[in-house]
């Protein structure tokens, strides 16, 4: 009979290996799925794991997809590390895009190229504002942040819908629900001609470094993490849990808003009802698969972007629905959580008959679970 036994201390190796193992299991299930759907599994895997990195152009597209995921996941990592469950990053992203568009619309022909900074700052403010509602209601009224942040995603979508179908609709846009195409001065500079990649990717990499310093080299980051891991210890040390709540939510809201702003100032170039692309939810998976570590998040964001691009290619090449991406992303988080059990526990074979009580009592290790005999 299989049995879980607590490890004396968390396994560092499993902590790194668990995402790899989870990816392997996801790939195995994915292969089985391709076979079941009557598709060549090798072509399926090729589309997901080779094509997105095959050419320079493919790589730049991959980096562009990864940019918002990295930015949002960095903020969420701080949240989850401080045990604040902000799952409404999607809404903060949308409001960030809305604020960025509001700023971008005020630009005219004479506006200088510096204006893109204003656009991005507006986006950060928008995301922060949306997250601040969550923080305020949690702090002041004890309202559950999971439910409030999620409800605000639906509200944000409706705000976006109202604007693009109503006051912000382009009068010369043949009645399509979209704003004007924003002027060049509101857009991030492109890195190379012929590619869509823009300076946003550097913003993301800078943010990775900044969050690494914040989390592991500052007192504020230390306080946040203690608050998440051991709330009692944090209280005893006098670390304010209210401050942690506000910091985590404002940071993650601002980052999600920035991601939305960069999409407006980059690949989108205008506000449409298609702004919500699920990045806010995918970033939750990115954060966990990246071990809530800034560097890990870069790798997991790249992986998640491969799922996105692979899903689009699977639709055009293999005739499979694009929603395959969501299946694989959800599956990856599911298997990751299962594999994470191995960080704190190891699997032991045990005879079907439980050990007599006297024998188990001689095992003095705190880790022994033999006393229950209720394995599986």
């Amino acid at each position, binding site marked *: 009979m299989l049995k879980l036994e607590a490890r004396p201390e968390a396994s560092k190796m499993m902590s790194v290996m668990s995402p790899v193992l989870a990816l392997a299991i996801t790939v195995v299930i994915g292969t089985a799925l391709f076979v079941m759907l009557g598709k060549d599994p090798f072509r399926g895997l090729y589309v997901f794991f080779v094509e997105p990195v095959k050419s320079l152009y493919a790589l730049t597209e991959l980096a562009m997809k990864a940019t918002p995921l990295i930015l949002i996941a960095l903020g969420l990592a701080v949240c989850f590390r401080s045990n604040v469950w902000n799952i409404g990053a999607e809404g903060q992203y949308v409001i960030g895009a809305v604020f960025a568009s509001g700023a971008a619309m005020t630009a005219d022909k004479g506006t200088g190229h510096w204006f893109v900074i204003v656009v991005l700052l507006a986006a950060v403010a928008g995301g922060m504002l949306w997250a601040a509602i969550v923080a305020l209601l949690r702090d002041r009224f004890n309202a559950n942040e999971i439910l409030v942040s999620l409800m605000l995603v639906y509200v944000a979508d409706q705000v976006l819908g109202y604007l693009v179908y109503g006051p912000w609709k382009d009068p010369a846009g043949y009645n399509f629900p979209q704003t004007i195409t924003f002027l060049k001065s509101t857009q991030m500079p492109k890195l190379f001609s012929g590619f869509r990649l823009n300076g946003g990717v550097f913003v993301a990499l800078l943010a990775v470094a900044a969050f690494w310093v914040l989390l592991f080299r500052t007192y504020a980051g230390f306080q946040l993490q203690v608050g998440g891991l051991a709330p009692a210890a944090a209280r005893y040390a006098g670390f304010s849990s209210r401050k942690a709540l506000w910091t985590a939510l404002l940071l993650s809201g601002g980052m999600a808003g920035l991601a939305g702003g960069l999409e407006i100032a980059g690949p989108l170039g205008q506000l449409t009802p298609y702004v919500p692309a699920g990045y806010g939810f995918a970033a939750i998976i990115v954060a966990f698969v990246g071990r809530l570590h800034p560097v890990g998040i870069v790798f997991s964001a790249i992986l998640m972007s491969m799922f996105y691009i692979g899903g689009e290619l699977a639709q055009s090449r293999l005739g499979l629905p694009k929603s395959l991406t969501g299946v694989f992303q959800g599956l990856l988080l599911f298997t990751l*959580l299962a594999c994470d059990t191995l960080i704190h526990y190891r699997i032991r074979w045990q005879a079907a008959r439980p050990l007599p009580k006297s024998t188990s009592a001689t095992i003095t290790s705190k880790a022994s679970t033999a006393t229950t005999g209720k394995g599986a």
Partner: protein
Amino acid sequence: MESFALLLAATLSAGTVLAFAALGLLINERAGIVNLGAEGMMLVAAIAGYATAVHTGNDWLAFAGGAAAGALLAAAFGVLVIWLNTNQYATGLALSLFGSGFAAFVGIRYTQEKLTERPNFHIPGLAEIPFIGPAFFRQHPMVYIAIGLTIALAWFLYRSRAGLVLRSIGESPESAHALGYPVRRIRMLAVVVGGACCGLSGAYISVVYTPLWVEGMVAGKGWIALALTTFATWRPARVLLGAYLFGGVTMLQFFLQGEGVQIPSQFLTMMPYLATIIVLVLISRNATFIRINMPASIGKPFFPGS
């Protein structure tokens, strides 16, 4: 007057969606487990139920299919959370994300399918009473089943020994374990039954309430159901009342649109979500009140011997 009767009827139907899901989540939470995967389970159950209804033409088989889909996903969640000791919030979230992706993936070929016209249900005699008849007695049988389930669950929790054991596990799994109850098996059972209820809700949406299949059609009702259990302070009768209240808020937008109220439709669509936030704020304001009523072990893993 006639339109008000129809509004009441629609409210009961919308409330039934929330009632099944919230009652299922109530069973979970009474055993100390929070399943944030409600939205995902409901979506998969919605497509499972819809596909069954399209292929068999039998609504009862469709409900069974939805319940089975919900129970199956809940079982996967339960194995992770109860036997592998994973974080309940993260695992539930994973279930929601997986469920919405999976339902969209499976459902793509059903977006064009239509269900054949179903006969309207009437309770003979009562349905003919003016106003009261059209409001209350021309409902789908599932509406009355939801009321029956509420009564049964209230009896189970407060009048039966098994219900007492379930509640004791939710309050203190350690004590229940010390008394010799198989805590993890009972929790698993509660999770699976709760998943089946969420499944019924999902199938009701796609087969009766809407009735058609659209990607993401549950539209946050799973999350609203989660809020409802808090709003109802974990009591079955209050869950049902809360469900009807929220059903009313959902229906009010169509009623107002029909009456020609000049508000952009987006603000009307927002109402159920804003109402959820407002209700959460009002009920959670008194932290002590919530703490007294909340099952004490909620969200906390129980792993004997560690």
